[in-house]
């Protein structure tokens, strides 16, 4: 027993690098197995050539990248950026007040509301998508409601439109916005807010000068966590979208599953990763500068 305690003490307190390596070993192993190896594999695959019937020929070539850089794919990338930005923006507009309410006003209802927020997360996303198809359809729940209320004269076409795709994406990814914003709001010492009131600031001034700036780390994290999965989404666009909501995720998916062109799909994925990583890098530089300035 004492032996174990000794080892633990050594592991936890020890300044030696060996000990810290030991402690982060599970994480490193996890990252190596499920992040580094797959990405390396993807990179290797993107440099191969396709063979007959979707087989992979292991000979080095840049061909997939030169194909992927063809300007015909640029509109798809821009469209995807547009959808991801729109989704992130809407998720922020809807998510921030929700998180604000949860943090400041929900009181005893908070636990229940949190669970309600998480429940859609536990259902299969296919079930959720099909539910949206039922709701948004021409003879769906929403249209019959609107018709009965006399708000529209003829059923609206909502399915397979940009509207349904953005709606679906906001629905799926809004918890990624609410939770980080909520946790950063939670971390704001309430004393600071009281101090602001004591010093004569009104509600709006307190919000703009104290609460909002202090919640910004959560807002940025939420935006990133929403934006990134949106860039890779294909299910929502596939089921709720139409020909004009074809996104980069659909293009990649179709290379793997329909066109049987894995090397090209891998090259597209690598380029998407590169775009995302350089965006993240630029963002981090910007944030560092902000911190230095502050």
């Amino acid at each position, binding site marked *: 027993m004492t032996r174990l305690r000794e080892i633990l003490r050594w592991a936890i307190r020890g300044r030696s690098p060996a000990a810290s390596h030991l402690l982060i070993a599970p994480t490193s192993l996890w990252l190596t197995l499920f992040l580094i190896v797959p990405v390396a594999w993807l990179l290797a695959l993107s440099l191969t050539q396709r063979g007959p019937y*979707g087989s992979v020929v292991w000979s080095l070539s840049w061909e997939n990248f030169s194909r992927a850089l063809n300007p015909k*794919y640029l509109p798809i990338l821009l469209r995807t950026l547009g959808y991801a930005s729109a989704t992130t923006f809407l998720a922020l507009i809807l998510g921030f007040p929700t998180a604000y309410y949860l943090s400041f006003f929900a009181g005893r209802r908070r636990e229940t509301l949190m669970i309600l927020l998480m429940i859609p997360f536990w259902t299969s996303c296919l079930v959720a998508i099909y539910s949206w198809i039922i709701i948004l359809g021409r003879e769906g729940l929403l249209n019959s409601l609107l018709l009965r209320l006399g708000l529209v004269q003829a059923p609206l076409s909502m399915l397979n439109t940009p509207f349904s795709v953005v709606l679906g994406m906001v629905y799926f990814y809004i918890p990624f916005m609410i939770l980080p914003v909520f946790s950063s709001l939670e971390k704001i010492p309430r004393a600071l807010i009281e101090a602001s009131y004591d010093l004569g600031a009104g509600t709006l001034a307190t919000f703009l000068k104290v609460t909002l700036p202090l919640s910004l780390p959560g807002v940025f994290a939420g935006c990133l966590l929403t934006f990134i999965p949106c860039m890779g989404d294909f299910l929502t666009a596939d089921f709720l979208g139409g*020909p004009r909501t074809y996104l980069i995720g659909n293009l990649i998916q179709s290379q793997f599953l329909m066109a*049987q062109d894995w090397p090209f799909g891998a090259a597209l994925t690598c380029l998407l990763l590169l775009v995302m990583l350089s965006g993240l890098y630029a963002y981090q530089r910007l944030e560092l500068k902000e911190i230095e300035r502050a």
Partner: protein
Amino acid sequence: MSRLTRRDFLRLAVAAAAWPLAACGKNQGPSVNFFNWSKYIGPDTLPSFTRETGIAVNYEEFADEEEMFAKLRSGARGYDLLIGTDYMISRLKGSNLIDPYPPGVLMSLGNLEAKFRAPPYDPELAFSVPYLWGTTGIGYNKAKLPKVPSSWLDLWDPRHQGKLSMLDNARDCVSVALLLKGFPETETSPEAFRQVKELLISQSPLIKQYSSTTYMDGLVAGELYLAMAWSGDVLQVARENPDIDYVIPKEGSYLWVDNLCLARGSGHREEALRLVDFLLRGDVAAGIANTVRYASPNAAAKAHLDKDLLKDPRVFPDAATASRLRFHAVLDAEASQLWNETWSDVKVAA
């Protein structure tokens, strides 16, 4: 109510613990793993096979054939019997995913119609046994249309903007575009494919969705007026919904055959062969066709088919229509690549 004693509880716990074991033991009897299209079998087909032979069937479905192929090619094992459409046979063969049938083992092979005993994609039926066949055509909702469609070009009619759907695969869309442009399916010239691409891209602003799986819901709900469709999918619904109908366009179309294939590396070859033989039986094949409303290639099934199905020219086309139907050509690897790229470009440009 008697109280649950400790002993009862222990007994229950032991039984509960043993239950999965017992279930495992049960699975050790003969079994076969069958990978089929979704909604592509009769409700009683597999249970009656198990009743007759004692062989359990683990049944799995796919909704998209290319995805099925991708799954197999990426190394999914454990399937014994799978369904492959005509054009898929050479690909499955070329990728070493299926095995040839041992000659002379299938007792009921003679039940097949002559036409399907030597199909162009596998003339000796070395790797494939025809299961069902159907056509690609137009499914439509009569209630929404002033006149019934008769031409593929009705799918290019701007009056139906936003009410049209196309099957989401290169095979059906590129082949029809080639047909409309007057090229044979074996054509590979850049000029032909430029025209094909142009034709399909010109259609995309009218299209509500490219889908091979959800178009029937759209037709029934009136979201779609016309959809490029597979015969049986439409006719299953048309049986209950008089507004829904199906037509083989006047320009002609393709008939395709879905086949039973033996997965390579299967550990249940004998069971798989017994299942194939069972599915070839006239009454069994008819039971399937009566449910799924696709045509059976089985001559012995004719006697057991529903009369209305047998007489339905949308299922078994009359001579005039049949003369406008053809088998898909067998494409080599390069041509399939060209088709896939063309289709991908259409979707990208849409």
